[in-house]
């Protein structure tokens, strides 16, 4: 956490309301996202209890497992979830665009992609586990399931995987998305409670954020957003309802469990859509669309993989796969951090605070300055900026600027509060700099050592050439009958 965010939290305590920590929205919000609020039975590795799911705030679909320990009912739950989720996901496959590539064949990319919103990180983990327990199943063989079940498993696995990737918005945890934009007057631990977090950001009329958050901690007023349920609810309401179903599995008994679950899910369902509106009200950052494009590309590739009939994702990555995944996550994290700073002066301010960026006014400029003689003569305009920021830069440091795309400069001299730079990139091809390419005296500019330069992927061997130090070439993963039959008790 930065000092800037810490200060915002202090102000939230004093003012009794959450404080903005960004000036723009850094996540994509689909025009029609799908909200998924799952519940699971306490104490079990993965026993779905029910869920509320859908893309229409007014018409959620309620899924119910009246006896969560019953294996057949679990698969019925998965099939029913697939009925809602798969048509939504596959609907995006219909319209594509052709993307031209320099030095490569053009390819197709879906014009839009699905977005699944879950209340918190645990709900995304639940989706991953549900994916893990269903993707190896088969529609034929000794324990046949509905053909949609293994497909659902692959998609859930994919979405849960993407949700761990910084900057990806295909599956988003709402508490994480909100916490990335607002600081509350409580701890990060308490922010994991969706109702409390929304209470801080948007308290009901006549109540301050602190009071709203305290109220949100009462499980009777605000049931937990799942997947874990309130123990009091388990003992007093759910337990008897499940036992009644055990004794007589009638439609009435199912309705009793459904009714119980509805009371727990509905408040969270409404909160989710309120949170969507809160996020939607923020203006979108300029690099959000670019990251969504990456998401669309990834979605399209997975769609093709499924269509080609590839095997389900392996239980565990091989050595090369794991290294590649880690490297990709690191690159995504670095790039996401830089892009946010470039999009948002308030995020950039964190780097100004630590001396990795500065904002100031141009006091003088020499746009015609050159270096070298003859053919190696290069245009290197000089710009001197006065700043009140505690910049920590040394001559030779390479800087970028959020003010101009493709612009780069090098620190020449630091003299008290004046920093002299020479512009090295982004001036056009002419003998003199393109108009507007060099900052002019009086202009307010921001420079930073952060750059989002393209990083090539780590050089990794092909999986079949995995060195012996890493276990040698992994056995190729072929899903077998045991996988399809795996116990789920």
């Amino acid at each position: 956490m930065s000092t800037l965010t810490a200060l915002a939290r202090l102000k939230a305590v004093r003012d009794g309301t959450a404080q903005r920590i960004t000036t723009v929205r850094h996540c994509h919000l689909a025009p029609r996202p799908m909200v998924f609020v799952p519940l699971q039975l306490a104490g079990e590795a993965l026993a779905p209890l029910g869920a509320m799911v859908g893309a229409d705030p007014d018409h959620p679909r309620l899924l119910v497992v009246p006896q969560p320990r019953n294996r057949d009912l679990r698969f019925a739950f998965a099939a029913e979830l697939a009925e809602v989720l798969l048509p939504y996901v596959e609907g995006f496959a219909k319209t594509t665009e052709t993307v031209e590539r320099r030095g490569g064949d053009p390819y197709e990319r879906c014009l839009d992609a699905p977005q699944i919103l879950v209340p918190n990180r645990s709900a995304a983990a639940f989706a991953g586990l549900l994916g893990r327990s269903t993707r190896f199943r088969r529609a034929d063989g000794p324990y046949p399931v509905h053909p949609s079940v293994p497909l659902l498993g692959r998609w859930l696995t994919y979405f849960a995987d993407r949700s761990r990737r910084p900057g990806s918005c295909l599956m988003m945890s709402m508490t994480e998305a909100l916490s990335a934009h607002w600081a509350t007057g409580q701890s990060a631990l308490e922010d994991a409670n969706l109702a409390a977090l929304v209470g801080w950001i948007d308290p009901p009329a006549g109540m301050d954020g602190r009071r709203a958050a305290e109220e949100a901690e009462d499980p009777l007023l605000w049931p937990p957003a799942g997947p874990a349920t309130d123990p009091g609810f388990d003992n007093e309401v759910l337990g008897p309802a499940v036992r009644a179903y055990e004794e007589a599995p009638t439609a009435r008994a199912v309705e009793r469990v459904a009714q119980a679950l509805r009371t727990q899910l509905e408040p969270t369902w409404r909160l989710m859509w309120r949170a969507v509106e809160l996020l939607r009200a923020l203006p979108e950052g300029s690099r959000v669309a670019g990251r969504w494009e990456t998401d669309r590309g990834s979605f399209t590739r997975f769609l093709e993989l499924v269509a080609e009939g590839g095997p389900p994702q392996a239980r565990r990555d091989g050595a090369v796969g794991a290294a590649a995944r880690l490297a990709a996550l690191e690159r995504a994290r670095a790039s996401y951090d830089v892009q946010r700073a470039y999009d948002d002066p308030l995020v950039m301010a964190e780097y100004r605070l630590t001396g990795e960026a500065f904002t100031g006014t141009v006091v003088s400029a020499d746009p015609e300055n050159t270096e070298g003689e003859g053919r190696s003569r290069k245009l290197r305009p000089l710009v001197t900026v006065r700043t009140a920021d505690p910049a920590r830069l040394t001559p030779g440091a390479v800087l970028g600027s959020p003010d101009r795309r493709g612009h780069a400069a090098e620190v020449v001299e630091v003299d008290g509060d004046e920093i002299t730079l020479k512009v090295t990139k982004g001036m056009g091809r002419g003998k003199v700099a393109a108009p507007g390419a060099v900052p002019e005296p009086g202009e307010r500019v921001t420079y930073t050592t952060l750059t989002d330069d393209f990083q090539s992927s780590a050089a990794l061997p092909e999986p079949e050439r995995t060195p012996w130090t890493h276990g040698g070439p992994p056995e190729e993963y072929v899903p077998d009958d045991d996988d399809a039959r795996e116990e789920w008790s």
Partner: protein
Amino acid sequence: MRGRLDELRGPVPPRAHDARAIAALAANPGCARRAVLDAAGVDKDLTARHVGFPAPFGQSQFAITRGNVFEALVKENGCAELLRLLRELLGLPIAQVGYQDVESVGSHLRHSHTRALIDRAAREGDDAAVFYDHPLLSLRIAGQTSYLEPDVVAFQVGGRFHIVEIKSFAVIDGQAEPEKVAAAARQAAVYVLALRALLADLGHDPERVSHDVVLVCPENFANRPVATLVDVRRQLAVLRRQLDRMTRVDHLVEELPPGITFDLAPDSEGTPTRPAREVAGALRQVPARYAPDCLSTCDMCMFCRDEARCGGSTDQLGRQVRDQLGGVLGVDEALALAEGAAEPAEGQEEIAQLLRLAHRLREECLG
């Protein structure tokens, strides 16, 4: 000292610590309130309820049932399933496996019976592997004996004892939730410590208790158990340090104002009759070190959180925020420094400068 602690607690028997409570002590060692309440054996749960801040802990019947079912499965038929697992994990010989259910002697004798059995096993040290089910160990904490019940102690050839901890959270494709494994390791470390203390007391080498505990959990989505060795050396070190501190609780108690007590004055039914305000007043005289982590470990958490909030302490925001504030402890104080409404005291110049800059940047970007 004992008398002073009895006075603090009032005329009720002291609450014994279980392994989970002892492990939780290690989570927040700097908290004097918890150290004093625990040393005096005060019923923190009842106290918190009485002063109007019940802890938000509850356990679902589903979780309890599942835990019991799994433990029963592992232990049924004289720990047959456990034997299968340990054979693979520790290389137990197939021949001669004994099973001793310590509970068979009745609860009042369990501790001495455990002691006698462990002594014999350590003395004879033959090839026989024996499981001890329901053993009762003890640990002296701040002058008070706590009795602890590990799930199983396994004795193995080569004369080494292993603590076996049975948990019902799943290990999926070789991975389990890190927080749950960490909690299990902390708890198992308490048992290792207690068993080592017993061996030392009997004149055996305490190091014969392995620092590798056996964690038994369900595998994947089924009920089939899987065993893993977990090294608890780090947890042991932390625990030892904390328990040493606990024995120095005398200093904390000496500094308390005379006459202070947390006595709830329970009536014959056990219902507290002392005015809640008085009890709360007494509690406030012992400084707490609240952190949001307390919300999952300590019965007093809601009381201390409220105190931190009312007192405007930055503790309420968590250690991450505190770390950024360079020792400024109050919300108002930090804000006054940031907004230039207060001059920094000696030693605060640097943090004040940083806060002022942060404030200026926020104003500039949001203004």
